[in-house]
């Protein structure tokens, strides 16, 4: 099972983990969340990410996924700064709930690099104009009814 660490600003990481646990029905093994504190130096955060990864059982070369909230921001930068020492690390930014759920369901069967690719794909696909999708479905349901098709 590939460990997953969520990092972000303020309550983002804890909030995302909380949402994951609500949907998946409880605490998830090998999943941790870490917040950048307002006063914190990114170097210090990098140290805490390193410790958190070790606690998740990630050593040297071994694979792990870091989901960070924002590309180019301190939590993501702190994670990528660890790459020289932790070459098995995958860092994906723009973390969202759909990508996180997909990862957690697939991480027993896929390796970290493949999971990173799945996260990107799923994270992008899951962004939708839900209002437009429902309006279109409603139009379809009504059109079907007018055509006299059975329900």
């Amino acid at each position, binding site marked *: 099972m590939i460990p997953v660490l969520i990092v972000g600003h303020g309550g983002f990481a804890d909030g995302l983990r909380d949402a994951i646990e609500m*949907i*998946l*029905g*409880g605490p998830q093994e090998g999943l941790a969340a870490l917040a950048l504190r307002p006063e914190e130096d990114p170097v210090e955060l990098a140290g805490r990410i390193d410790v958190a990864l070790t606690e998740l059982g990630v050593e040297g070369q071994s694979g792990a996924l870091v989901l960070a909230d924002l590309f180019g921001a301190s939590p993501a930068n702190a994670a990528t700064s660890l790459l020289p020492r932790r070459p098995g690390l995958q860092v994906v930014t723009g973390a969202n709930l759909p990508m996180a*759920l*997909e990862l957690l*369901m697939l991480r027993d069967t896929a390796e970290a690099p493949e999971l990173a690719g799945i996260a990107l794909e799923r994270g992008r696909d899951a962004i939708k104009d*839900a209002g437009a*999708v*429902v309006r*279109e*479905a*409603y139009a*379809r*349901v*009504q059109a079907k*009814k007018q055509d006299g098709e059975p*329900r």
Partner: protein
Amino acid sequence: MTVKHLRIDNRLIHGQIVVAWLQAIGADTVIVANDGIAADDFQKAMLVAVSPPGIREKILSIDETLAYVKDPAHAGEKIFLLVKEPADALRLHRGGLGLATMNVGNMAFAAGAKRVSNTVFVGPKDIEAAKALTAEGVTLTCQMMPTVARGDFMQLLAKAKLG
């Protein structure tokens, strides 16, 4: 048997279903069996809109559901059947659905409902229907996600001093 799984879940098609259950069951068809929704185009549209790609979705009344699953034309389908409450599950059973096991997923809190688990709350009508199903030979399980242990619903009811 063309119906692979029946789930009692007041939220019908939602995150847990889309993310985990359809795949775990290997379903190619999801039927929402509910008289009120089947008669309401907008509610139907909302369910149609959130059904995952590659899954055939049907929003049917209880009677239409029975006709659908008994129709030999649908014998090859792998159906995941969703109902909102035990009373609808009982109607399906009495209408000849023929399932030996049904699963209770989520039942949200409603006024007067009593707690069975974190995500399951029941009122008198639910308890009555659950008892009737059990008396008529249906095993009721309680399982929120496919990856967690399957509980015995009647035992949980008894534990909550409701059964």
